[in-house]
């Protein structure tokens, strides 16, 4: 008796588990995809794009609830998509955390990625890049009233926060200020709460990411970006190696810059942080487009 009951219980549970496994994290995302694919048919253009962005990086790629995503990355992506003849309604936004970006491109899960994606030789072995659409540099975020910290070499005896697994904090310790106290956290949002309460004196990563954090509603006016970038991070558009869109994307980015929409998008997303994109980086040799061969 008991055995039969238990077995049937197990069977029910197994069935439940199987049906549950049908809605894995990726399945939830692709359900959004199918709904937007329907939308594209109604739109009549027939073109649609799946674009990978960050969902948790305010000012660059951020999605609140089920709203449309916002941020500089997203606006560049929208502009490029429009130039490629894809309506905004036909874009499916997919979250691509840093660790997943190459995989998602190689599998064809996304068509392109705009997610603070630095162009590096190592990554180029697996994926292709268009752009860069922005050149960032590693910088420091400090409290608005901070006077002492002016750059990476003024951090001796100070407390610095960065994200677990990123090399940016270690770089400061190795190359600039040996006496810096490092704490690594799961995300920059944690670092910002420590900066606010005074437990750390600076947060380090790419300048535009810092500006985005400082520009959120809750943080407005509390922090400033030091403005002395000490590395070069060229944000590219991640593409599959077999793409045929690279040149099209480069042209679109160029057009966005020429028309002034680029400048505008940058301004509106970093408003109130005193941040200005480094001109030297963004008009010099580092901003030259990747070749699309």
């Amino acid at each position, binding site marked *: 008796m008991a055995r039969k009951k238990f077995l049937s219980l197990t069977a029910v549970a197994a069935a439940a588990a199987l049906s549950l496994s049908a809605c894995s994290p990726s399945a939830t995302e692709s359900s959004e995809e199918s709904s937007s694919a329907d939308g594209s048919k109604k739109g009549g253009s027939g073109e649609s794009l799946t674009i990978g962005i960050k969902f948790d990086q305010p000012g660059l790629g951020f999605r609140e609830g089920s709203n449309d995503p916002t941020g500089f990355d997203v606006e560049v992506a929208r502009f490029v998509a429009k130039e490629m003849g894809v309506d905004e309604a036909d874009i499916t936004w997919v979250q691509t955390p840093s660790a997943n970006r190459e995989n998602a491109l190689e599998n064809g899960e996304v068509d392109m990625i705009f997610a603070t994606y630095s162009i590096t030789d190592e990554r180029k072995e697996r994926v292709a890049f268009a752009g860069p659409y922005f050149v960032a540099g590693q910088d420091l975020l400090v409290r608005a009233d901070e006077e002492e910290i002016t750059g990476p070499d003024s951090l001796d005896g100070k*407390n610095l926060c960065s994200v*677990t697994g990123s090399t940016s904090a270690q770089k400061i310790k190795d190359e600039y200020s040996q006496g810096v106290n*490092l*704490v*690594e956290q799961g995300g920059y949002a944690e670092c910002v*709460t420590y900066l606010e*309460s005074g437990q750390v004196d600076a947060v380090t990563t790419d300048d535009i990411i810092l500006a985005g954090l400082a520009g959120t509603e809750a943080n407005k006016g509390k922090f400033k970006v030091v403005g002395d970038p000490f590395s070069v991070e060229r944000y590219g558009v991640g593409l599959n190696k077999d793409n045929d869109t690279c040149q099209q994307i480069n042209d679109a980015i160029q057009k966005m810059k020429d028309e002034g929409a680029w400048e505008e998008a940058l301004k509106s997303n970093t408003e109130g942080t005193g941040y200005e994109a480094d001109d030297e980086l963004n008009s010099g040799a580092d901003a030259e487009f990747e070749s699309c061969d």
Partner: protein
Amino acid sequence: MESLTTLFEQYGSQIPVAFWMNIKLTVLAAIGSFVLGVVLALFRISPVASLRAVGTAYVHLVRNTPLTIIMLIGVLAVWGQLKITFADDFTLNFFIFAVISLSLYHAAFMCEAIRSGVNTVPQGQAEAARAIGLGFLPAARLVILPQALRGAITPIGNTLIALTKNTTVAAAASVAEASVLMKTMIEFRPDVMVAIFMTFAVGFCLIVIPIGLLTTWASDRLAVAR
């Protein structure tokens, strides 16, 4: 094989350091959780209703909270907002936070282990203690707890084993221990990840299995003959 040698040349010396961190966490948190566990167990069998309530509430609350959350709240709220700092050096500071979080968490399990030991002490022992005029604390200290602890060796050993393994969660409190190093090594050399994983897994087996054997041996040897 050659690639393995270079990998272990680069990281080999860090592996004992990382494991040493886990061992330090284990030993300190074992002491901390045992002391707190005894206190909680005393609370739970004490004559004072409010102490019993505090003990019960603590055990129920902590046993049902993920350790990850305790670590995160410790760092985010207690260090980040209440600004309670134990050392200026971050490494030491977060190490202490990890020890405290581990102690608080496992104290609930230690308490239950000791309480199960108390259950093995026959009622006659307590009656005898009372009969010779011992009050609650002397009776607990001289008669009940010594027997209870000997009867609780197996569950205490199980808690110690769980504690040893849970020291890896200290990664959430920014402590550089074995799991963090393993992650770094696998990210560096994904082609030999099975070898790397086995190295760390066997390392934990080497710590955990002796604890288990020691527990069995001790519980056999120290069992109160009845």
